[in-house]
């Protein structure tokens, strides 16, 4: 047996955990803690890249932990989808970590909540990786719990009134969805006697139709809460915007996508039939439309972005519901694109808040003149999210629309029309913010933040400190001279915007990879074979999608 790099996949979970433990030990030594955190993520990224290269052409491969044979032992499965998700999520986490470290350093936080930030963040990354790699439902549950528990800490960091208020909603909703998931796992185990996903792919088909439907629906509800699809998305715009900018950014990028990933696995591996596809189409339609209408009503940038996040989850559900190879390949590409773009927009919103004093568009104006770089960093991902050619958002949406038209029934056409309309409305919401925050003169703002009107000393545009704009009475009271936009904050955000552009430049190979992933997704037998070994007895053949 040849050893492939895919066998290294568990390290994507273990290294962040070890990094978290180490950085917790270094609680009082911030510089060292940052180095450990960034170092362990770089190492994780390197290993995940090897795994991605190894799975690029080979398809699904299983790692049997502890040498226990499936379906008895714990299995981790890597295929093109999960390895792509691993790489993208770690790239995003790394950029956010650099940004957050910059924020911490700029604020001169020698102790305080920032010291718990790095361990929690690494545990979040470990949980996300574990969920992407899980080969059985319970391990997926554990992955969810790891990332959720870390996210509770990150969400309520600092314990201010606002964060506690929204944190309560977030924690309670998350726990309820986890309990629902656990109940479903128990029921699936009672019905089939296994929780290994490959084993289930074979055994669930033998169950009575009613039982299958119930288990299927319960899984979709549990994952739907996590993925924030309408009508289960109510919690997201309430809780996300109150957390600090890097935390919101990484939540927006990763947490909902883990839910989407689980829905993809449910629809392709566990229940490959087309039973609930119409329901998913309706859900996708409503998620898109309701989400974007919510975004149009907001005057706060972070809340507006939270609503566009919900709206664009609809596109991914649309692709899953169509379920053909073309649709799934476009979905995989779209998920990767959306993780990067949504995170970079939230990071830029954090920079706007830091430089402009607020994320309320009524209080902001003239930012393009104050910081041209920030304007560029906002405009590129905004156009990208809105689906302007030639950016990756356009490519992903085109793929989805093509697949929807090929499907050819009335509901699919309705979704295609809605997708186009929603992408126009997304552009409207984002460009309206652009016009008001960046283009108009500061004097035109309804209630301009004093910091906007403060004279900027010549030659210090990028390295502006709070002393220069005399904001000592406000946000930075009691602190020393604070640098408003530190190089690593700008660096983290710029790097992520650059990755977003790279998704467009390297769209060819990426679409090839997404297509390989989708090819395996529509043939769950390959997944089963990778985990359980070649079929000794003939297994039921799963219909390939047309």
């Amino acid at each position, binding site marked *: 047996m040849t050893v492939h790099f895919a066998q290294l996949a568990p390290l994507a979970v273990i290294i962040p955990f070890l990094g978290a433990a180490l950085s917790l030990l270094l609680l009082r030594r911030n510089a060292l803690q940052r180095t450990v955190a960034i170092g362990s993520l770089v190492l994780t990224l390197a290993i995940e890249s090897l795994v991605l290269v190894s799975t690029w052409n080979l398809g699904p491969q299983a790692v049997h932990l502890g040498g226990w044979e499936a379906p008895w032992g714990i299995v981790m499965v890597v295929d093109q989808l999960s390895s792509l998700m691993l790489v993208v999520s770690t790239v995003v986490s790394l950029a956010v970590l650099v940004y957050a470290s910059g924020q911490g350093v700029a604020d001169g936080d020698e102790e305080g909540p920032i010291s718990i930030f790095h361990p929690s963040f690494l545990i979040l990354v470990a949980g996300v990786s574990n969920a992407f790699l899980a080969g059985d439902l319970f391990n997926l549950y554990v992955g969810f719990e790891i990332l959720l528990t870390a996210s509770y800490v990150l969400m309520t960091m600092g*314990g201010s009134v606002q964060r506690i208020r929204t944190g*309560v909603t977030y924690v309670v909703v998350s726990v309820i969805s986890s*309990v629902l998931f*656990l109940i479903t*796992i*128990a029921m699936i185990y009672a019905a089939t006697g296994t929780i290994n996903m490959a084993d289930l792919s074979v055994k669930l088909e033998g169950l009575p139709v009613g039982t299958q439907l119930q288990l299927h629906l319960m899984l979709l509800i549990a994952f739907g809460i996590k993925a924030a699809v309408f009508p289960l998305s109510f919690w997201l715009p309430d809780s996300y915007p109150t957390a600090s900018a890097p935390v919101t950014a990484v939540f927006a990028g990763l947490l909902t996508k883990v839910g989407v990933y689980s829905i993809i696995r449910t629809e392709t591996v566990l229940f490959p039939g087309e039973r609930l596809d119409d329901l998913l189409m309706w859900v996708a339609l409503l998620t898109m439309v309701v989400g974007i209408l919510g975004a149009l009503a907001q005057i706060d940038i972070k809340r507006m972005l939270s609503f566009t996040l919900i709206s664009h989850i609809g596109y991914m559900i649309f692709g899953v519901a169509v379920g053909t190879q073309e649709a799934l390949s476009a979905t995989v590409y779209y998920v990767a694109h959306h993780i990067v773009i949504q995170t970079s927009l939230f990071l830029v919103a954090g920079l706007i808040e830091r430089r402009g*004093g607020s994320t309320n568009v009524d209080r902001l104006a003239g930012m393009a003149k104050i910081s041209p770089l920030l304007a560029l960093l906002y405009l590129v991902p905004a156009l990208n999210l809105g689906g302007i050619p030639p950016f990756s958002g356009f490519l992903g949406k085109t793929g989805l629309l093509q697949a929807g038209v090929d499907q050819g029934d009335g509901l699919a056409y309705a979704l295609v029309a809605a997708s186009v309309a929603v992408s126009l409305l997304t552009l409207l919401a984002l460009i309206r913010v652009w016009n008001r925050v960046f283009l108009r003169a500061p004097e035109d703002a309804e209630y301009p933040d*004093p910091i906007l009107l403060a004279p900027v000393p010549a030659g210090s545009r990028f390295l502006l400190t709070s002393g220069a704009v005399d904001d000592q009475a406000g946000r930075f009271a009691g*602190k020393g001279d604070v640098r408003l936009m530190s190089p690593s904050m700008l660096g983290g955000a710029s790097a992520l915007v650059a990755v977003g552009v790279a998704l467009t430049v390297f769209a060819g190979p990426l679409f090839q990879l997404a297509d390989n992933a989708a090819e395996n997704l529509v043939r769950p037998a390959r997944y089963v074979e990778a985990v359980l070994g070649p079929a000794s007895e003939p297994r039921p053949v799963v219909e390939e999608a047309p």
Partner: protein
Amino acid sequence: MTVNLTLLVVMGVLYAVGVYLLLERSLTRVLLGLMLLTNGTNLLILHAGGAAGSAPLYDGSTAAEDYSDPLPQALVLTAIVISLAVTAFLLGMIYRSWVLGRRDEIQDDVEDRRVARQSSYDVEDDADVPADTTEFDEAPRRQDPGESLETPGARGIEKWGGKR
């Protein structure tokens, strides 16, 4: 599959009481409801393993079907540990909420109300750029002890949302 009726009834009661408590507005009751729900789920997982048998330690003389199924027990153990962590965290949050505001209720989303009114500027809320001082300050109490007798829902929004 045989099921222990007593455990089944206990599970049903746990779920019923848990859901009832979850619908309360008091955070402590919500927490109790969540604890009951997770414990009910633990019983459900235990049920999923079928009837009880002898301890799943291999001794060579017991027939395979006479052992208890060890997998649900392992799952329950993991689930208990997870719910312990979440319960501890929620308790911490509830205490923090009590310290900050002397209140034990789930609060409304102020921003939602503001968007609903659709006035882009609200004199009371936006009059001043919020001075976001360090988060470790002991926040001032927002409520006199005498006022706690009022019904929380109606006036709570303005009080909670009004910035310093």
